[in-house]
Structures are given as C-alpha cells and as structure tokens.
C-alpha cells in the first residue's frame, strides 16, 4: 500500500497548481478547469485518509464531490456559453459586472 503521505503530497501539489492556475489565467474555461483540479486534490485527500483509517466515509465523500463537480462543470460551461453569447468574450478581465 502506498504511503498516504505521498497521496497527500500529490493532493497538495495538485491544489497548488489549481490555485496558481485560477489566479493567473484570464480564460474562464481554464479557471474552471483549475477549480476542478482543486476539487480533485481534495478528493485525493479524502481517499488517502479513508485508506489510512479503513473508513468508507472518505470514499463516499469523494464520490459525492465528483458528482457535484460534474454538475458544477455543466453549470459553469452553461454560464460561459450564455456569457459568450451576450458579450462575445469569456475573458474574465473584461467581465466585471460586480464592480463597485
């Protein structure tokens, strides 16, 4: 069995990459993908912990998170589509509807 430390380390690396991508990218789809990365980092942590303690709760949470992430992607893409149809862009720097 793989040492959970590696799994948690992988989660941390994935999380950092996701966060970094979400900060630095202007493209909404890439930011959404980065958010998925973050979620998956969390899932890895869940699974690692579940394996470590022999408890299925972590697996169950991971499955729920995957399901919710799928729904979230669907909603996110739908928003981007409608945004693109109105503004002709999905560049986040050009869409500042909440400003001030």
């Amino acid at each position, binding site marked *: 069995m793989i040492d959970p430390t590696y799994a948690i380390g992988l989660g941390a690396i994935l999380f950092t990459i996701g*966060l970094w991508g*979400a*900060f630095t990218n202007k493209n*909404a789809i890439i*930011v959404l993908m980065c958010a998925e990365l973050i979620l998956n980092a969390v899932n890895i942590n869940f699974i690692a912990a579940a394996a470590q303690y022999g408890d299925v709760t972590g697996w169950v949470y991971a499955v729920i998170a995957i399901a919710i992430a799928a729904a979230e992607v669907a909603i996110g893409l739908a928003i981007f589509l409608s945004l693109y149809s109105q503004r002709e862009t999905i560049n*986040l*720097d050009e*869409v*500042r*509807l*909440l*400003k*001030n």
Partner: protein
Amino acid sequence: MMMSAIDYALLIPIIPIVAFPVILFIGQMFNGMPSWRKAWKEGGTIAVVVLGVVLGLSLSLISGYIGAVSGWDAGNANGDVSAHSATESNDDAVSANVGEYDSWINFHITDGDNLISESFGFGIYLDHASVMLLFVASFLCLMIGIFSLGYMNTDEINLDRNHRFYAEFLLFSAGMFGMVLADDFLWLFIFWEIMGLCSYLLIGFYYDKPSAAYAAKKAFLTTRVGDVFLFIGLLMMWNLFNSLEFATVWSDAAIAQVVADGNQGQLHLALGMMFIGAVGKSAQFPLHVWLPDAMEGPTPVSALIHAATMVNAGLYLVVRMIPFFANDQLAGDLSTLALTIAWIGGFTAVFAALIAFVQKDIKKVLAYSTMSQLAYIFTGLGAAAWLLNNGHTTAGLFAFGASLFHLFNHAMAKGMLFMASGSVIHEMHHAHHKINHSHGDHDDGHHEEDHFDAQDMTNMGGLAGKMPITATAMAVGSMSIIGIPLIGGFWSKEGIIASTWKAALTDGGFLLFGPALLLLIGAGMTGFYMSRMWFMTFAGKANTPVADEVVEDTPFIPIPLVILTFMTLGAIVLASMHFIGWASEGFGHLSLDIVSGLVHELKHAFLPGGDDSVSSILFLVTMLTIFLSMIVGPFTAMALYGGRLDAYKAKPWLQWLIRLSHKVNSRSHFDNTAWAESSLAEALDKRLYIDDFYDNICEKWIVVPFANICAWFDRRVIDGAVKGIEYGSQETSTYIRSLTTGSARDYIMMAVLGIFAIFLLIWGVA
C-alpha cells in the same frame, strides 16, 4: 393618646398641594361649562374652601401654641432667643417649650454603619415668629382668595384660564405654609423655591403679553441670583454642622464645636451668603429690580405674593438666623453681618421711597413702598442682630419683636392696600369699557386697551365719593404704613426706629447711625408718597371722563377690604396685648388690658430695652418721626395733590380729610413744574437707571458672551459630531467600495486569504 392641633399641622401645607393638580385637571375638563364658571368660579370656590380649612387648622394650631406658652412663666423674661430647646413630642404635642418641634418622616444618611445625619426628616417647628407668620399667611391667603373671586372672575380676559390662577395660587400658599412651618433650613429652601416658581408662573399669568413674560423672567432670574448664594450658604452650614435642622444648628453644643474648631469666620460667611438669598427674595437693593416689574401679574397676585407673603420669606430667613447672633459663644463675631443687614435695609428704605415719589402707576407706588417697608424690617432685624451679638439682650429682643410686629402690620396693611388698588383698577377698567360700549363699539372689547391705562393715577382723581369702601380701606392702610399714632404700623415702626437709634447710641454702635438716620428720613418720605397716592387717586376732581363713571359694584371685592380695615385698626388691640414683647419672647403671656398695654407699648416705643440713659434722645427721635411722617409728608402731598371733590360727597369719615387737603392745597402755591421737569425727576422715573444698568451689564457681559459660547458649542461640537459621522461614513464606504473590483480572480484571492486567515487564527488559538 389625645390628638392635638400639632398632629394635624402637616395637613396645612399638604391640603393645598393636593388641591393644586385637582383644580388644574378639573379645570381642564370642565372649561367653558356654565356651571363651572358660575357656581365653581372656575376653581375659585375650591380654592377658597381649601384656604378656609387651612385657616381653621392654623388657628387651632396657633391657639394651642399660645395656650401652651401662656403657662410658661415670665421668670424667663430675659431668656435667650437661642434657648429653643426642641423636643420631639408626639403625644403631648404642645408642651410648654418655646420651640415646638415634631417630626414625621425621617431619612437617615449613613456612611456604612455610622449615622451621619438624620436631618432630612420633615418636621414642624413652632415658635413666635413662625406662629405669627403662619397666621399672616393663612389669613391673607383666604382674604385674597375671596378678593380674587370678584377680581378675576368678572374680567373676560381671564375667562377659561382662571383655573390656572387658582391652582397656582394654592401651590404658592402651600409653599408659604411649608416654609413657615419647616424645622430645617433645607425644607425652608425647598418651599422657598416652590414659591419662587409660583411667583414666576403668576407674574407671567398673561404670558401672551410681552411685558408680563419679560417681568416673569426678570423676577425669576433676579431671585435666582440670590438663591444660588443661599444654597452656597446652606452647603457651608452643612459643612460646619452636618445638619441643617434648626434644633441642631442652634444648639449650644453645635455652636461650641464650631467655636472650638475656630470656624466662626466660616459661619459668618455662610450666614452672609444666606442673607444674599434673603435680599433677593425680599427685593432689597441691589436685587430689588424684579419687584416693580412683578406688578404685571394680576392684582391679587401682587397683593399676595409681592406684598404680603412671599417677600416676607427673606425676612423670615433672617429671623431664623437671629439665634446665631444671640448665642453668647459667638458674641461679637457676627457684627459685620449685622451691620450689613442694617445698612442695606436703611439704604433701600430711602432709595425705594425716593423712586416711589414719581411713580404714576398706582401699583408701582405700592411696590416701591413694599420695598421700603421691608427695608425697615431688615434694618430692625439688623439692629436686633447687632444688639444681641454684642450682649445687649433686652434691647436686642425688643428690636427683634418690633421687627416681627412691623412684618405683621405691613403684611396686613399692604395686602389691603393692594386689594384696594385692585378694586380701583378693576372699576376704572369697567368704567372705561362702559364708555367705549356706549359709543357703539360692540365689535371688540379690547381694541382700545393700549390707549387707556387703568393703573395710571393721573387718569383717576376724585374717586373718594364713588368708592367709599375702597377709599376708606386705602386711607386706613396708608395711615398704618405711614405710622399715624395708635394705628397698626405706628407701634412697630416707632419700635424699629427707636431700636435702631438705641443701637446706634450704644457703645461701638456708631456705624448704625447711618441706617438710623436713613430710617428717620424714610419715615417722612413714606408720609409723602403714601399720601400722594391717596390724594391723587381719591381727592380732587376726576381727571378723565372714565373716572367719573366709576362705580363700586363688583361682588366679593369689598368683603376682604372691610375685614382688613378693621384688622388694621385692631392692631391697637394687638399693641395693647404687649404684642412686641410677646413677639420678642420676652414675655410669656398675652394679656388683654387695653390701657395699661398701650402705656406699656408706648413706653417701649420710646425706650426700647427699658434703659433710660439715652431716653431723652430716643424721645426726641420718636417725636421727630411722628412730626415727619404725620405732618411734613402728608401736608406736602396735600399741598401738591389735594382738592375738593366736584359733585359727589364723600363719607363723613373721609370728608374732613378731603376738606383739609383742599384747604392746604388752596393756601399753598407750590409750583411743581420745575421739579417735575428736573433731571432728578426723570432719573427717578427711570428708577435711577439701575434696571437699565443691569440690562446693559447682562447683555454685554453675560448674554452676548454666553450666546457666543453656545453658538461655538453648537457649531463645533453638536454640528461637528453630526457632520463628522456623515463625513466619516462616506470616506469609509468609498474605501471599502474600492475593494469590490468585480474581477473574479480578486474574489478568489480574497476567499483564499480569508481561509488562510482562519487557519492562522485556529492555529494561534490552539
């Protein structure tokens, strides 16, 4: 346990205090209803009934007190005034002690476990002074209440607001009764302030008239100046004695403590501060300016508050200070204050009389006369205080008694004079109305109010034939004030003047020559201005058509006038009862033996204290006083203002006076115009510019700087706070708004930072 009068004494102030809101609320409910106006006199009936009950209670209390004191042996004839041994007596209430003291409610001040004082209990203190003033107050309140039924309720200006008058009237009388009965300087002060409030409310009764509103403010603020000093004096006294109760602060032990601590100077200062309060309340120079303006109130108010009762409160306060002067342990320490009291009195006596010379308003003459007469009493009390403080007990007690007697006589006579003047004003007013209406002006009864002054004596003249009762009352009252031998004020005024001279002639008393001389001059001046008022109003020919139409037909008004006329004449009887001696507590009994009593009092008037080393000088002084007040003053007034009535015939007892005045007037050829146009007359007419001076001082040094401070405070602090809140929140919101960039990445950043911060916090706490 037998209930005696003193057990009910607490009801004397309480009944009117309870009736005050009752009349106010009932009046508010029933205003305008015919039966409320007719049968209830808009509350007047209630007021008179209440005052009647109070008079009954007072009389039973007083008779109980006199009965108890009569049993007191005259062996204590030279007793010290300070020897009021107060007893707490509930069962056998009226015992043979000079000071009666009873306490109902007690509050204790403690410091942890130690009792500091229990002096906030309300109790009743009875001695000669309080008994006499209680009678004066309750009797005159009833008389003036009856007078008001006629005066207030027949004038349509007062319609639907008389209930306010009667309610405030009762509150005032409660204040007066409470002050007289209080056994404690603090309670005295509390009731004193109640009276001050009622004085303000009643002067401003016609508050829609600017001059009345101004007068009310002036009276309130001027007396407030004195009251602040009074309060400081009370605090100093509290500091010295840890108590303000008469029985405690007058006790030998407490004063011995003060002397042992070397605090006589502080006591002297405290009494001086309290005296300033008395000066304000009794309208003495320099706090006299409010009294003449206070005549803006309805005449019953002037009669009650500003002549007969409230202005006596200041005198009563000085009377309550006398035991300090009389205490052996303080002998000589309080002389300066005694001299100050006498000097202020002497100066005011002449000063006020001088201004009264030129006043045209009948009530203003009486107001200045009140100031002048109160000043006599102050001088008498000052002389008494000086004599007692310097060991001349017998003469001092005599002066004290004479002052109290003058207080009594003056209150009775001045109350009556004011009511008589009110009668004149009221009838003049009505006559004026009648004439106006007969000319066909039915639309508005008051449109010509401003052109005709019903109080101006130059509009009157020759009223003696038309108003016999009023003219008689006015004549008797004036004689009492002037001091025509054997009538009322004669006894007391001679007593005061002789006592002051006696004090001046005593070793070390040379500083009292000033007040003594001023009083002597003042006696002649009193003779002049009182006679001037009477002759201007009642003798000669009618000066205006209005004065020709006057009839004396208002109900209720003559009743108190008649009663008081006989009361004033009855002061002969009082004098024959050794009244001065009784009031000065030198004699324990009142005996009614007219001839020997009169002889006794006459002897006393010439020889206060029974000392005959200076008797020839005092005899001369008395004769001089009688000559000045009876001959010089009145005959000058007759020469200037006397005259025969034209059509009417006066009553026989007035006819000789009118004839005499006519004779004097036609024989003498005084040219009055040069005097009347002189700058002195103008200065007197302007009240010697003192009022203007105060107005200017107030404006320049008090009102404007204070207004500036207020304006600064308003602009900087209050407005500043409001504007600061507004500006601050705007700035903050602008700053916070700049954080909402609208960029999704910034929000993510903030969320992450927030989570990071939460982690940091948890980590820190753990």
